[in-house]
């Protein structure tokens, strides 16, 4: 690799070492860590702020309007204003609520959301902790979110928030298994739970095509399944039932005001970035460039470009689709997602034990498509829906 390119690629790493280098040797590694932690927190908090505007503006554009465009340049200070407002807004806790738990819920949510970033490689050599059980760590931390949501909904002692919390937990646990199972195919191929080595596995190129896992049948299926499960895990539309505004008002955070409410938003968006980041890491080659001739662009830019693309897709979907109903959501999880992910694991195993070539592709594809069709048929039959024709009376 060209050294200038390499320098650009590693500029932040170098900077970090430079800054840490001013300190006595004893503290250097600590400083290193602290610097990267600060970087992560700031970058993703900033990304959160930007995403909120982008989402509002993007939804606006989808809906033929501008969206926020007056506060600061092109409306980009909008999150700042919202932040100031939230900070200075009165903090209301219902009298009947469980005060301590009510306080801890948003805090726990944000902590859990942040912890997930420990194992996300955002660029070459840019990962906070290369744990050898990184993916598992990610999922383990993700379970804290469930707890936080439950705490929020339960402690508010509001009927709607309780309904929202129950919905949220049921939804999250139902999609957690598919989430884990969908990522297992990658782990099988990579032979490691370490996110860094998973990305490293995908950095090669055949010709100009990258070795991304998404470019295999099981990887493609896995990616789609993973994204569906991730959407559900991060309560995004069309799976945003726990806060289903039109039904249960604001769901589990109905009784939160001021900055605690903002923390819920923060936690939710951070969770969304984190799962998207994991999807990128697992299936989309992490920070690797999509084509071999584009490797001169620094790795972290690739990562964030992919992340922004994922966010855009999330926003796009949110702007289009109505939300599912609870039973449909649950049935989808257990009757489609779970079997499909299991079949996908099987397909990945078959792929592994077969010699390369077109046959392997075919077998794998058949193994996936046939059950998918059958299962969705089954789903449809359960609900019996179809396009209808109508008659007219004179």
């Amino acid at each position, binding site marked *: 690799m060209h050294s200038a390119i390499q320098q650009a690629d590693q500029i932040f790493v170098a900077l970090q070492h430079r800054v840490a280098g001013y300190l006595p040797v004893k503290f250097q590694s*600590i400083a290193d*860590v602290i610097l990267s*932690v600060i970087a992560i*927190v700031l970058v993703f*908090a900033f990304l959160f702020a930007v995403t909120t505007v982008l989402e509002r503006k993007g939804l606006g554009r989808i809906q033929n309007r501008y969206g926020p465009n007056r506060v600061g340049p092109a409306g980009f200070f909008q999150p700042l204003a919202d932040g100031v407002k939230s900070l200075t*807004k*009165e*903090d209301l806790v*219902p*009298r009947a609520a469980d005060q301590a738990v009510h306080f801890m819920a948003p*805090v726990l949510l*944000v*902590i859990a959301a*942040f*912890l997930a970033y*420990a194992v996300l490689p955002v660029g070459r050599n840019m990962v*906070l*902790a*290369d*744990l050898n059980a990184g993916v*598992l*760590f990610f999922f383990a931390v993700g379970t804290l979110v469930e707890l936080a949501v439950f705490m929020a909904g339960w402690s*508010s*002692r*509001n*009927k709607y928030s*309780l309904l929202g919390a*129950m919905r949220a*937990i*049921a939804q999250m*646990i*139902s999609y957690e*298994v598919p989430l*884990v*199972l969908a990522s*297992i195919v990658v*782990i*099988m*191929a990579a*032979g*490691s*739970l370490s996110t860094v080595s998973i990305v490293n596995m995908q950095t090669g190129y055949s010709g100009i095509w990258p070795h991304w896992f998404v470019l295999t049948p099981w990887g493609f299926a896995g990616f789609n399944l993973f994204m569906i499960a991730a959407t559900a895990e991060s309560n995004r539309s069309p799976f945003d039932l726990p806060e289903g505004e039109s039904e249960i*008002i604001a769901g589990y955070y*109905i*009784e939160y005001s*001021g*900055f605690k409410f*903002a*923390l819920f938003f923060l936690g939710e968006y951070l969770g969304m970035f984190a799962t998207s980041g994991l999807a990128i890491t697992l299936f989309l080659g992490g920070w690797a460039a999509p084509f071999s001739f584009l490797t001169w662009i620094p790795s972290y830019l690739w990562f964030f470009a992919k992340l922004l693309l994922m966010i855009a897709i999330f926003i796009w979907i949110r702007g289009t689709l109505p939300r599912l109903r609870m*039973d449909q959501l*649950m*049935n989808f999880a*257990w*009757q489609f997602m*779970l079997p499909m992910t*299991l079949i996908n*694991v*099987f397909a990945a*195993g078959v792929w*592994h034990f077969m010699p390369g070539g077109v046959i392997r592709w075919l077998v794998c594809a058949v193994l996936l498509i046939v059950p998918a069709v059958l299962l969705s048929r089954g789903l449809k039959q359960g609900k019996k829906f179809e396009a209808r024709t109508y008659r007219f009376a004179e």
Partner: protein
Amino acid sequence: MTNSPYFPVLVLLAAGVGFAIAPLALAWIWAWKFSPRKPGPSKNAIYECGLESAGDAWIQFHPGYYLYAIIFLVFDVEAVFLLPFAVAFTGLTFAAGMAMLVFLLLLVEGLVWAYQKQVLVWS
């Protein structure tokens, strides 16, 4: 301690706590300095669409959710066993693969049973 792979995680944890608590503290200081909190009987009552909330929200809940939790628990454990298998997969023999398949099939059997019993149909 600092050379443990979990040290950065710890720092991140601290940063996360700080990031969550700091604005709350700031908000608290603001409230204390400028804008006093004014709780009141109607203000701090539970919100319910503008009406007075009747009855407690903490009631005995519908058990429909419970079955999902059980199945989730079982499959969570299954995933836990799958993970090391997946990691070791590339070095494994066909026989080991079969063994895992048997393990999976056992659980799938449970799942199929559950389907048949209509347990996994949300009421």
